């Protein structure tokens, strides 16, 4: 129910402090080029296959790895330089994975060599999808799911609404906010391309109402009579989860285990639209992205346009480094992002933020028993029972966990955030989900 005096939203959720004031008014700056770039082959979907060899010279924007299968995207060189290594390097998730390492050419002017521009209207759907895949474009919201996969829609599921996600409900992050303020024309250009190709009747852009400048900038770009709706939404976490966004905009629930497409929606992040517009109109593949560098540990918080593969250490150095009290680095937002074991890891296509925290923010309070207060139930946007899931996870009751729909949990962390007993609920749920997936994999193998 959306009363006229209330902004649209979903039910449940939490209200963390947004901590965006440090960076929300800062114009996106460009990251200067550094010496070395490391590009993991797997950045959303199946790892790509390298098309370069050691010692080969590459130009900025040149393809260096090609998609391997449908749910996979190409990779492009972020700088002019030389391929120095095809080997294992540390991924932000801690694993040592196959990467392409490029040494930047210090004397190059670093001008992008654009690919041929393509008029999307001349492509049929299959060629359009293939072209997006060639551009290496993934969802820039954080999950880095290959963008083209969403555009290949089966005929029996028509798309009614193309939804743009400009919520940015994660605290600290302001990269999407700045993108909407500074490049609203490209956001809408990308949206119009995709909506037309999908055959969507209208475009809805959901923006939390703490970004009035973004809402105004986007509205200013909408042509009179155009079916594009910019909707201010309540500031609430996890408003930016695509199922919650659909619920907020249309009042419609996406059933468990189903996709937005099953209710006639395709959801994309606003940053992804800029990448789409750049790729089609200017021939620039996804070789850089906007990253918010923030948190109490960062000396000079900033929104930075960073070439992919830039080491986090160099990015932090660009932001005047970190204070000595820094205890933890997080990639992504503080709610769903993950801690970094090392800052010698590259910025990925899905890196929306790099945050540094001191002991004051990262201290874990003493854990107490569950009070049965029910706050986690009121926080869970998927209407699960986090307290029961956490208890079952501790006891390794995997069958009961599945019966309680643990696999529907999106790990947003609202339950842990709200728990007065400091129970690591979402961590326990992630452990359970990982164990269940492992068990299924092992059962299949023999």
């Amino acid at each position, binding site marked *: 129910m959306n009363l006229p005096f209330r902004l649209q939203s979903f039910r449940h959720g939490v209200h963390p402090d947004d901590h965006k004031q440090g960076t929300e008014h800062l114009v996106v700056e460009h990251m200067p080029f550094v010496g070395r770039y490391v590009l993991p082959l797997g950045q959303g979907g199946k790892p790509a296959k390298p098309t370069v060899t050691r010692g080969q010279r590459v130009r900025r924007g040149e393809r260096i790895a090609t998609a391997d299968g449908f749910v996979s995207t190409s990779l492009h060189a972020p700088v002019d330089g030389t391929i120095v290594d095809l080997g294992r390097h540390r991924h932000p998730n*801690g694993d040592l994975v196959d990467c392409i390492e490029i040494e930047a050419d210090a004397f190059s002017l670093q001008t992008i060599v654009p690919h041929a521009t393509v008029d999307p209207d001349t492509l049929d759907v299959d060629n359009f999808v293939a072209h997006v895949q060639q551009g290496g474009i993934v969802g820039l919201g954080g999950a880095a799911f290959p963008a083209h996969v969403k555009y290949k829609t089966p005929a029996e599921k028509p798309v009614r609404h193309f939804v743009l996600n400009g919520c940015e409900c994660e605290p600290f992050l302001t990269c999407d906010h700045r993108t909407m303020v500074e490049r609203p024309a490209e956001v809408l250009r990308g949206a119009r391309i995709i909506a037309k190709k999908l055959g969507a009747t209208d475009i809805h852009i959901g923006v939390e109402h703490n970004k009035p400048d973004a809402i105004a900038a986007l509205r200013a770009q909408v042509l009179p009579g155009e079916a594009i709706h910019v909707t201010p939404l309540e500031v609430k976490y996890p408003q930016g989860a695509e199922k919650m966004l659909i619920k907020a905009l249309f009042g419609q629930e996406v059933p468990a285990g189903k996709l937005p497409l099953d209710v006639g929606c395709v959801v994309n992040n606003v940053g992804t639209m800029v990448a789409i517009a750049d790729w089609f109109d200017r021939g620039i593949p996804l070789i850089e992205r906007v990253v918010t560098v923030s948190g109490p540990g960062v000396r000079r918080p900033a929104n930075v346009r960073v070439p992919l593969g830039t080491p986090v250490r160099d990015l932090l150095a660009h932001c005047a480094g970190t204070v000595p009290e820094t205890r933890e680095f997080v990639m992504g937002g503080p709610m769903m992002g993950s*801690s970094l074991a090392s800052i010698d890891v590259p910025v990925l296509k899905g890196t929306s933020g790099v945050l540094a925290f001191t002991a004051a923010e990262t201290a874990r309070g003493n854990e107490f028993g569950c009070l049965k207060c029910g706050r986690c139930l009121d926080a869970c946007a998927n209407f699960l029972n986090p307290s029961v899931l956490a208890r079952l996870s501790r006891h390794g009751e995997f069958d009961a966990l599945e019966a309680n729909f643990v696999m529907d949990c999106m790990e947003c962390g609202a339950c842990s955030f709200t728990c007065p007993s400091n129970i*690591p609920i979402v961590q*326990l749920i992630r452990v359970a989900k990982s164990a269940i997936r492992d068990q299924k994999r*092992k059962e299949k193998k023999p």
Partner: protein
Amino acid sequence: MHDVLMAGAIMAGLGILLGAVLAFAYRFLRVPEDPRAQRVESMLPSSNCGGCGEPGCRAFAEALVKGLRQPSGCTVASKERVAEIANFLGVDAGSLDRKVARLHCGGGRAQAVQIAAYEGFESCRAAHVTGGGGKGCSWGCLGLADCELACGFAAITMNGNGLPVVDVDKCTACGDCVVACPRDLFELLPLRQPLLVQCRVPLAGAAARALCTAACDACGRCVQDAPDGLLRMVDNLPRFDYARGVDPGPSPTFRCPTGAIQYVPQQQFAAAEVRP
């Protein structure tokens, strides 16, 4: 009065009818059960660990009585108990190639490079899904005791070096630790062939040594030293062919520069380091 009689008659009629059905079922649908299965089950340890490969002790007892399995298939029962069951059934106890859980990692706190301090929820799996914990090696033991917790026979204790010590006498090879380890480091291997590769790092040379002083750097000396091609290099790790049932002796370990390949007839790591 009439109603009461009617109700009584219906109940009596139902009773006779259902009784007849039961009598019929007892006579013609009975599954003959070997009475020995009950006895054998009572002789088994009732731990229902599944180490024998059957779904539980009852299923194993039935398989024994039918002659499908041999009493030594039970990995939990003592030798005397196995002999007792064999004697009762009048069958050969069979010989068991006893297996125990072995860890494919020798990189404890003293050997593996730590790149960060993990302060999150204390569980290997939690660390594994959170930036891979603090260890530089993304294949090695995380040392947060998920296996110790999973072991129903108290055969696993973490030592001071952060590695699980498997008590080979208590281990019944039930496989619970194999399932619990998020990095798949445990394997059930025959105790009779105690040649172990205590590493899972698929890197070679300096890249491997940079992670851990006990890492296998794929130098290949063990493969040269092993008799009769028992060891092969696969993905930068020596792989020992246990299926051939040959004990190669400790010779392949003699020239190993890092101690990644070990010959351990007993438990893997020093018990002296067992946590107080």
